[in-house]
């Protein structure tokens, strides 16, 4: 008897939960799942000016696979975003460690100060770097004022390096949060025990703190790697022709070039490569961490 009532209750819970969830799920289906489905469908279609031919074909994928300039663009995007991910995570780790372990009194204030850039306009934060790296910008102006250079340095802006610096700045705050959460969760008594047993500070960090904070490092890496590979504003504003990335090409396909099917297949290929890279990265780094432990 109790069993039946329990079953009924749990079914009731399920119904209640899903009725609360249904508006959001409907939204996700219409505004997220269907669009992605149509993106995939389009990548197998072809377009002749405005007329879309819905016969399924691998034509677009063949074009992307055979075009060396597209490969170069995808490769550059991956290199820039991997480098950005690596540097931002390395920069953010000590900062997260500081807030988790050193700050005692004003943790909230530090966290808020580190989070604010996360929510402010990405476009404006990227544009600020144009003011710094530009021909008459802050760096050139300061250097020539100090008499260190005669002519402004023109290599600061419009290249892959400018894209990398701008991205690293724009995303470094994002990496702190997940790393901080994983550090904060570490049971302090583990560290005390290791210290009592005579482990050095370095050994304690390497064998306890770092492996336990690794889920945060993984999360931070993904939070940065996935969106930076698909970033469009930064390469557009500070990248110049040498610094453009795959998202700029996708945008051109949906804009001026007006070849949506080709743009769709580029988007799908990029997304697949990003997903595969993330999976490889997670598997390899998990294996490495298990060796430390």
């Amino acid at each position, binding site marked *: 008897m109790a069993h039946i009532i329990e079953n009924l209750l749990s079914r009731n*819970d399920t119904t209640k*939960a899903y009725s609360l969830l249904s508006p959001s799920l409907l939204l996700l289906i219409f505004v997220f799942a269907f669009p*992605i489905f149509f*993106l995939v469908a389009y990548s197998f279609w072809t377009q002749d000016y405005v007329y879309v031919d819905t016969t399924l074909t691998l034509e677009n994928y063949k074009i992307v696979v055979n075009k060396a300039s597209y490969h170069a663009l995808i490769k550059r995007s991956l290199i820039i975003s991997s480098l950005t991910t690596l540097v931002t995570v390395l920069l953010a780790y000590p900062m997260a460690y500081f807030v988790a372990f050193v700050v005692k009194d004003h943790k*909230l204030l530090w966290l808020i100060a580190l989070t604010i*850039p996360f929510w402010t306009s990405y476009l404006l934060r990227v*544009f600020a770097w144009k003011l710094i790296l530009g021909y008459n910008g802050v760096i050139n102006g300061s250097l020539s004022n100090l008499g260190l250079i005669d002519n402004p340095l023109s290599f600061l802006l419009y290249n892959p390096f400018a894209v990398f610096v701008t991205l690293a700045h724009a995303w470094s705050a994002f990496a702190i949060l997940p790393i901080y*959460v994983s550090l904060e969760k570490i049971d302090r008594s583990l560290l005390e025990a290791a210290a009592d047993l005579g482990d050095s500070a370095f050994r304690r960090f390497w064998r306890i703190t770092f492996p336990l904070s690794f889920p945060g490092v993984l999360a931070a890496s*993904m939070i940065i790697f996935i969106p930076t590979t698909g970033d469009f504003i930064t390469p557009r504003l500070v990248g110049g022709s040498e610094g453009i990335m795959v998202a700029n090409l996708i945008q051109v396909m949906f804009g001026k070039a007006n070849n949506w099917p080709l743009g769709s297949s580029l988007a799908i290929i990029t997304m697949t490569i990003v997903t595969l890279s993330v999976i490889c990265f997670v598997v390899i780094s998990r294996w490495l961490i298990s060796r430390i432990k």
Partner: protein
Amino acid sequence: MKATSKFLTGERVLIVYAIFFLLFLYIPVLFLPLFSFSGSQYMTFPITDWTLERYVTMWKKTKLLEALYASIKVGIFASVVSTILGILVARAMTRYLFPLKRTVMGFILLPMVFPEIIMGVGLLIFVIFVGMQLSLITVTAGHILICLPFSTVILISRFEGFDRSLEEASLDLGENTWQTFRRITFPIVGSGILASLLLTFTISFDEFLIAFFLSGDDPTLPIYIYGQLRHVKNIPYMLSLGSIILLVSFVTISFAEWIRRRGMSSKKVYGLFE
């Protein structure tokens, strides 16, 4: 005592590092307001003649005011709808055990880590395919999608700290569900709701990529700014406008983050990525 003195040098290095990190984070952005007071057309540094002229004259640009109004409208709709949806999701997630709970949660949070350009072009294709017009409505729909994960996470961390026995007591004492929600639940989770509204409004107000693909002929403010940045003579106005946006965002976000985290234990203080 000995142990603490051994750590001190390391701690000192970290403090210096942290200060440099904060400077690195904030100084580049501060050049925006600095240059907005420059009288020169060409963003030249060091700044020699100073002016407030752009702050006064930019309000005469009708297109700017239209874009501002569009962004405010979209922001209000997106933040209100995503917060209402977030309340429902947070309630379901914190109160009930149900099949596929983790999958559903993952699905709702997915847009947070999904490349925006893919969502943007996907939505563009879908909207055109079903024969709708690109407008502020399509932008709003896209914004609700990217705001929902944030409002959900903010609200779940609030609902989790909420003691259910208070609600039960209220129901036992004869209040109905609505009364209980109004008099017990809402006042306690209210700060989370306010934080969610403010933060999702900011996300929508600053969002560029989705609006870029979906706004059609009605630009939102970031799209308008982006368009103006291509003309050298308009850049100074965009610097003033950008500075005001930064200032307003800074105040809004500080306030929202403060009310969001107040009263939460320091371990739970993060919530956003748990």
